[in-house]
């Protein structure tokens, strides 16, 4: 079976949700396994990095890489897989845009470690145990990979051939992408696959806002009874749909929850959060600075709201980390 395509799956800084999506293919995965060779999938099968290192360069046909780049190890393996793979796919929001781990860019490494190991309320704070990069034990020196001072996307450290958005990418999209790969019909390098070109609003069936509809107060979904047929923005709820690529099948919208933006910006948009900000801020109806502050107070966490999945990929992050 030498001509079966070789596939690899890897998870960097991620929650594992993307992996679950693969397993959700269920029986289809078993059939699929007959058509391909999975040469690396640390989450599901026992592989060692050395197994990958042993492969020839470009021996892997397609590598699905999920998770953001958080530490040395993530980066090292990313470079490794790039070398060994013909096609590298940034799979899922984290490797595509930084995802939820990317929100760590709001803080610096030190305060994150402080928070996690020292000040979290559920912690026994008397212990004060902190992870060390290197630790001497009787058996010798144990090292853990060093955490970077900020989270990066895969594309920020390696050349990526395709982006497959989603947190996680929806199963059907994954299946159809796999079909495309098998058929050898991959589009132009650099494209986003497994998603639409336009935004969520394009497919959202809700009644859209009308002329002159403006916002005096932002509300959160739990604060109001939401009309299932009306645009969330028209109801004063921040919805990321206008600046988020469609393709997810609208699970949130159908559950009467606003879009959270996991599919990232649509074709042609560089910075999802600032585009969204530009759209939503223009809906605010006030000419009074004090009132504006009050209205803005109703957006509890602007960065987390507008850049929920794309902070690591944003110009904001870039500016922050260019700072001396």
């Amino acid at each position: 079976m030498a001509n079966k395509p070789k596939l690899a799956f890897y998870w960097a800084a991620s929650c594992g949700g993307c992996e679950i999506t693969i397993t959700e293919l269920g029986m289809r995965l078993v059939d699929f396994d007959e058509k391909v060779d999975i040469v690396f999938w640390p989450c599901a099968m026992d592989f060692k990095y050395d197994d990958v290192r042993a492969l020839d360069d470009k021996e892997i046909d397609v590598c699905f890489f999920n998770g953001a780049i958080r530490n040395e190890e993530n980066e090292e393996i990313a470079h490794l897989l790039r070398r060994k793979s013909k096609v590298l796919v940034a799979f899922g929001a984290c490797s595509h845009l930084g995802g939820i781990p990317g929100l760590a860019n709001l803080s610096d490494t030190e305060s994150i470690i402080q928070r996690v190991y020292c000040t979290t309320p559920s912690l026994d704070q008397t212990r004060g145990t902190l992870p060390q990069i290197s630790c001497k034990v009787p058996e010798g020196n144990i090292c853990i990979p060093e955490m970077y001072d900020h989270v990066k996307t895969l594309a920020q450290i390696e050349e990526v051939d395709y982006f497959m958005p989603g947190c996680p990418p929806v199963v059907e999209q994954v299946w159809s992408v796999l079909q495309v790969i098998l058929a050898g019909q991959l589009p132009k390098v650099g494209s986003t696959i497994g998603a639409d070109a336009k935004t969520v609003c394009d497919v959202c069936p809700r009644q859209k806002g009308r002329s002159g509809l403006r916002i005096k107060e932002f509300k959160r979904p739990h604060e109001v009874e939401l009309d299932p047929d009306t645009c969330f923005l028209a109801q004063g709820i921040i919805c990321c749909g206008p600046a988020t690529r469609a393709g997810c099948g609208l699970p949130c919208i159908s559950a009467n929850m606003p879009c959270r933006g996991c599919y990232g910006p649509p074709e042609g948009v560089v910075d999802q959060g600032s585009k969204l900000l530009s759209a939503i801020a223009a809906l605010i109806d006030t000419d009074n600075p004090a009132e504006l502050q009050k209205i803005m107070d109703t957006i509890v966490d602007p960065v987390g709201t507008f850049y929920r999945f794309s902070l690591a990929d944003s110009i904001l992050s870039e500016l922050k980390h260019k700072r001396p």
Partner: protein
Amino acid sequence: MNHNPHAPETFADRVRNIPGGEHLEMCYSCGTCVSKCMIQQKVEPEYNPRRLLRLVMMEMEEEAYESPTTWLCSGCDLCYPACPQEIHISGVIGAVKSLAVEKGYTSPLDTVSVDESLCSGCAICVMVCPYEAPHLIEKIVDGVNDRFSEVDANRCMGCGICVASCPTGAIAREGVSNTDIVRQIPHEVVKTDAPSLMVFICDWSLRADADLEILESYPENVKVIHIPCSGRIDPQLALLSLRSGISGVLVCGCKSGECHYQRGTDVANCKISMLDRMFDQMDLADGRVRFVQIGTQDRGRIRKEIDQMLLHLTSLQEVC
């Protein structure tokens, strides 16, 4: 009501009968509206609301429809609170315009249009427009019913608030599109001792020619991008400028209530204030991006603002 119930309805009667068109005959030609407005000075020498009112009173219907005044008034209402006769001048002009549109006249203005290949019908433009120019239409594309925004060219005043707010960059007019403006932001700025500043200037915010001269008098390190209204500012433009290495961004708009496009300056204020909050969250808030609202009486303020900004940026550089 017609002035004389027994006479046939005149052009002036028809204007009066449209809400906003009343009180037309109260005008005693003092010219306050003309000099309060900046259109004659900045755009069209033939623009003159006082004369348009006169044309209506003198039953010169065709001339009224063809007058640039009918089409150029953006309803900013700077003139309305200044009018000693309390005539809602933009209301009268609006009434004439609606009659002109009924007669088949069309706006000579350069207005925005929608690229349907990008538009996803989110209706953000519909909601943000001060003039109710865009609206959603439904259309069958490839057998599927799809929604798009369409712009009523007779209503659009070309402010660009929608352009800045469109999340997909689907709506634009020449010179005001994203690419047209981004093109003016340098790709990379070489760091020098003197800080560099990007000024996004709403041309209406500088009333006097002298102020424009001040703006142009600065050396290379102060770069100026003209936008039709501060409401055209998209926070991304500020971010892109900073990314290119420019030390600071100054966005200038009109005083609230004096915006040529009614709400543009308020929109800009919302955008920059919100960006500021984000900077704050990211621990980046150091006053590199500022929005200032310049009033019609703030002669020379542009110099003060730029100098102050440069001073601030210099002090930031020294810290680094």
